[in-house]
């Protein structure tokens, strides 16, 4: 099972950075399937603002590694059209904040084309983008907007937290026959983790238990998984054993994994960086309260971003999104400690 491989210290496993894992996934899929190509701002010669596409131009040339003008709506739409006609585009939107310019092409076109055409057409496209706060980039470069896509039928949504997951999930996303929103977190690109030499993929829709425990369940995704894990360590020192579930993909959602864990621990904390109001955490809470009502020992706690645009000032920025301390507090609260 995935976990084991990622944690195995077998010969074939190296420690590489999240951005390197993404680069390997793109490289391998482009070698494997010549209909795969990549489009985005400064992804060619420059190798991308977060260095994810470094070296791809040299190997695959300008026909398949395409630098785009600042025309997000249209080059995303071009991805949709290429996908409909037999290609497998990987479109990069540098910041999920700029994806606000491509919503028509993603939500009205890509997500609905298969359905509207009665199944005659498919849109095998991956939209890679990047979100989250933590680098002092302020309100228009720090948002967590997965909830919009989560609410859109026809889209899959992937938000990995480790290099291992990032590589395996991106490869699956590229092979998927429907549009996939692949959302990366700016603080993860330079984090390191074990990644096997051998090829592997990770099924979209399979969550992963990143830490086992019996007292309380924490559900998180993307960068919040790392924060939840460090909180879990502190809690362990206080004798509280936390089970940390990394959803990895929000759509499809691994509901069973969550419910099984909650039925075991009877306590649930959901951690999301996005604004509390109308976020994905609320939806998960609404599902769990409905399907595990009698198992819950206490109200589900949601730790989430504050109801504000992300401020520039570093202290205010930090105060706007969940920190380790907030998670620890929520866990103790849900346990009535």
């Amino acid at each position, binding site marked *: 099972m995935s976990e084991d491989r990622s944690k195995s210290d077998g010969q074939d496993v190296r420690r590489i950075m999240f951005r390197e894992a993404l680069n390997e996934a793109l490289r391998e899929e482009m070698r494997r399937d010549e209909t795969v*190509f990549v489009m985005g701002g400064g992804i060619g010669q420059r190798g991308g603002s977060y260095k994810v596409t470094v070296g791809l131009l040299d190997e695959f040339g300008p*026909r*398949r590694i*395409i630098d*785009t*003008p600042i*025309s997000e*709506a*249209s*080059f*995303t*739409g*071009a*991805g*949709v*059209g*290429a*996908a*409909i*006609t*037999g*290609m497998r*585009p990987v479109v990069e939107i540098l910041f999920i904040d700029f994806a606000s310019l491509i919503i*028509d*092409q993603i939500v*009205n*076109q890509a997500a609905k*084309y298969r*359905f*509207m*055409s*009665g*199944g*005659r*057409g498919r849109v095998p496209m991956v939209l890679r983008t990047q979100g989250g706060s933590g680098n002092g980039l302020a309100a228009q470069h720090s948002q967590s907007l997965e909830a919009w896509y989560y609410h859109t*039928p*026809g889209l899959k949504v992937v938000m990995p937290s480790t290099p291992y997951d990032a590589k395996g999930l991106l490869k699956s996303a590229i092979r998927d026959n429907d549009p996939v929103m692949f959302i990366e977190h700016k603080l993860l690109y330079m984090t390191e983790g074990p990644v096997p030499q051998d090829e592997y993929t990770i099924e979209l829709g399979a969550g992963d238990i990143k830490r086992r425990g019996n007292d309380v369940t924490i559900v998180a995704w993307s960068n919040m998984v790392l924060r939840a894990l460090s909180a879990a360590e502190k809690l362990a020192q206080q004798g509280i054993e936390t089970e940390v579930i990394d959803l990895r993909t929000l759509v499809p959602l691994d509901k069973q994994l969550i419910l099984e864990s909650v039925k075991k621990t009877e306590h649930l904390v959901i951690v999301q960086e996005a604004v509390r109001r109308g976020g994905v955490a609320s939806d998960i809470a609404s599902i769990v309260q409905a399907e595990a009502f009698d198992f819950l020992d206490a109200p589900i706690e949601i730790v989430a971003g504050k109801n504000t645009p992300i401020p520039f000032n570093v202290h205010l920025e930090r105060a706007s999104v969940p920190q380790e301390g907030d998670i620890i507090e929520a866990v103790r609260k849900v346990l009535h400690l």
Partner: protein
Amino acid sequence: MYSREFLEQLYRTLYTIRVFETECIKLYRQGLIIGYFHPYLGEEAIATGVCAALRKDDYIVSTHRGHGHCIARGGELKKMVAEVLGREVGYCRGRGGSMHIADVNIGNIGANGIVGGGIPIGVGAGLGISIRGTDQVVVIFFSDGACNNGVFAESLNLAAIWDLPVIFLLENNQYAVSSPIEEMSRIPDLYRRAEGYGVPAYPVDGNDVLVVYEKTKEAIEACRNGKGPVMIEAKTYRHGGHHVNDPGLYMPRDRLEYYKSKDPVALGRKYLLEKTKCTKQEAAAIEQQVQKAMEEAIEFAKNSPEPSVERFLEEVEQN
């Protein structure tokens, strides 16, 4: 210079579009068709002339006013009528309706409910072609209103800098619903916008099927030879309101009469009779065949099953 077979085919297509729209409007009035229905009446020469110049493996991108494009591209009347009636055997299994008919298998990427929404998608089809290195081309249909959606300018530029085999086919019917193009652009000759992006562009008489055909053929040649995109502005005029329920009272009568006097279908018939040995009787025979085919399509569609709600709900479960 044109074979009889060719001109017969053009006239058959022109007339089929005319009949399809006319008959569907009746069905609409009878309450058998619901939702939005945007007739292509008066613009038949554009889709007909353009698609006659295309190869089977080329692509078109259509619009909310897309029935003509679909028919000219070889769409099946039965599946089209069934779709606008919302039936399971329709092009979209009754799930799309008039605004979403698509069939990639015949090179029709599809209509669109978002004005301008199809333009970047067409550019993408062109991008795929250039990556694969084939000599296919893409024709993107759109009208004057769509030129004011930012994606028109963005897409024109993308096609230009990437030298894509894309023909931007503007059907300038001079209205966006009730908004006259003169009020929505200082320069109503919208092809002139292409110059600033380095894209060759030409205006043509959109009511003359042969003029449209010839200019499109030229553009296609350029595209197949890797010269990059071309824009063609076909001037035309609706024969009625924006959609079935719009009386179009804002359209000046004299203007309307002038364009009706340049009826593209009548002109197609004139060409057939004057440039070939085809007789009035033989033309009438074509018309009867078309009428009959449409009647059969309507019968077929009316008698076809509605989509199953149960099956739909099962499919939804898998989403």
